[in-house]
């Protein structure tokens, strides 16, 4: 009985043949007043006790996801001669930022089943329950969301952008645009062979406003009346200052 249980446990928990050891150039992104984007270097090594297995080569996928939020995607149509929003589809959750880098084309290094399980490709990272009645082409709405965000560099598919040396050392660089939302950016690393995920690793990159940005943001939300009055005081002072300055110049 004991022997049987032991054999069973060994069966379902295979010995980790290959494991990720990860390094990040930084695990914090500070949004300062002059913030205009940041590059994050993600590098690591594959630890293994045995020699490199024969057969399919090792592949690496890196996915960085910003905080998710619900969205509404609207589509315009012509009504009475003018273009107006007609159809709307609610996307239950879409990451504010999503970059997926891989050693090769994603459909080659990752099987569909594994993608579905781990939600790695951009399409899978967007959670979408169902379209309202009357909209049959809801796929076009998610396509549009991805297209618009890709243009803004908020969604990035970086195929063949990971350098993998000797199936052991890997490195890639993720360019984060300036228009970042605050929060924890989940960074996941996947090792795959023949499309199957053999190890995963997860870290969080913290994106935070600091200094003046932090102070203003907190004040606007915690003391809104004071913040509003301060904004008005600045406006009045600037208006008076300019008027006085011009009078001095003139006379």
């Amino acid at each position, binding site marked *: 009985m004991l022997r049987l249980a032991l054999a069973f446990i060994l069966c379902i928990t295979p010995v980790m043949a290959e494991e990720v050891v990860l390094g990040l150039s930084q695990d914090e992104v500070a*949004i*300062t*007043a*002059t*913030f*205009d984007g940041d590059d994050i270097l993600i590098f690591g090594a594959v630890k293994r006790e045995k020699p490199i297995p024969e057969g399919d080569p090792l592949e690496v996928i890196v996915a960085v996801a910003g905080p998710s*939020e*619900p*969205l*509404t*995607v*609207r*589509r*315009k*149509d012509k009504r009475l001669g*003018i*273009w*107006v*929003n007609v159809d*709307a589809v*609610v996307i*239950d959750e879409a990451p504010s930022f999503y970059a997926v880098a891989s050693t090769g084309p994603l459909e080659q290094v990752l099987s569909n089943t594994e993608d579905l399980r781990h939600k790695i490709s951009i399409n899978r990272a967007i959670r979408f329950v169902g379209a309202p009645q009357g909209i049959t082409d809801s796929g*076009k*709405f998610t396509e*549009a*969301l991805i*297209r*618009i*965000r890709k243009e803004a560099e908020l969604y990035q598919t970086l195929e063949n952008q990971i350098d993998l040396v000797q199936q052991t050392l890997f490195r890639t660089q993720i360019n984060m645009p*300036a*228009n*970042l*939302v*605050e929060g924890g950016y989940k960074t996941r690393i996947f090792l795959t062979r023949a499309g199957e995920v053999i190890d995963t690793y997860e870290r969080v990159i913290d994106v935070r*406003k600091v200094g*003046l*940005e932090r102070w*203003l*943001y907190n004040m*606007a*939300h915690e003391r*809104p*009346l004071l*913040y*509003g*009055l*301060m*904004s*008005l005081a*600045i*406006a*009045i002072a*600037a*208006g*008076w*200052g*300019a*008027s006085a300055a*011009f*009078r001095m110049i003139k006379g």
Partner: protein
Amino acid sequence: MQIYLPIAEVSVNAFLLLGLGGIVGILSGMFGVGGGFLMTPLLFFIGIPPAVAVATEANQIVASSFSGVLAHLRRRTVDLKMGTVLLIGGLIGAALGVVIFNYLKALGQVDLLVKLCYVVFLGVVGSLMFVESLNAIRRSKRPGAAPKRKKHNWIHALPFKMKFRVSGLYISVIPPVIVGITVGILAAIMGVGGGFIMVPAMIYLLGMPTKVVVGTSLFQIIFVTAFTTLLHATTNFTVDVMLAVLLLLGGVIGAQIGTQIGVKMKAEQLRILLAIMVLAVCGKLAFDLLVMPSELYSIGFEGH
């Protein structure tokens, strides 16, 4: 130089904002309009979220109007009495406007209604002003033509008459209050100060002299937009003070330059220029509604 805006959560070029503020400030000083009807669409265009653009623009208008009104006060071209009467109407109107705005929001399609409001009002006001000032210029060119006498119409038959010495008027307070309310409602719905509607209303409906109209309009706009700023700051948290500072630095300087230009120009020329500008913005907005957009889809941030 890129600047990250803490509330808008976007990064924009600081010099671009200073320049935009400056140009709109010049127009504000010249014509007595807050410039919101130009600036708000421009801010959308450079990628500021609409809610932040509308709220912050109100704050910026306070600065440029204050700067402009000081210059007018020194030249005694502000009718404080008339301004106060208009302001009373304006605050009532702004409060009503917020209620109407929220009602339209509940119905959906608020964006479209705001845009249609812009097209209709800018179109009507712009064309009326354009035709009127063209006629005025033609009249002034013909030598010997008698200046038009002030008409006595139904406005003079209304009760509660008041003397507005600076404007040289003795009229009932009812028309200015109604003008104030109407402008207040439209201002709250369209997210602007409302100068482009009030200036023509003061000239054509109330019969005020053009030189006094500009300063008085600015005086009223300061209070209405200050009220709107506080409303946005406390309910939606969408006033971005960093964005406002950059816009108003350019804006207050521009307003001073604009006031100087305005003094040197004839009233008819000033009006025809304002009319052309109003019509240009109207045309652009109408064009966007009529021509198929290159991207049919848009992303909204509210979940449901």
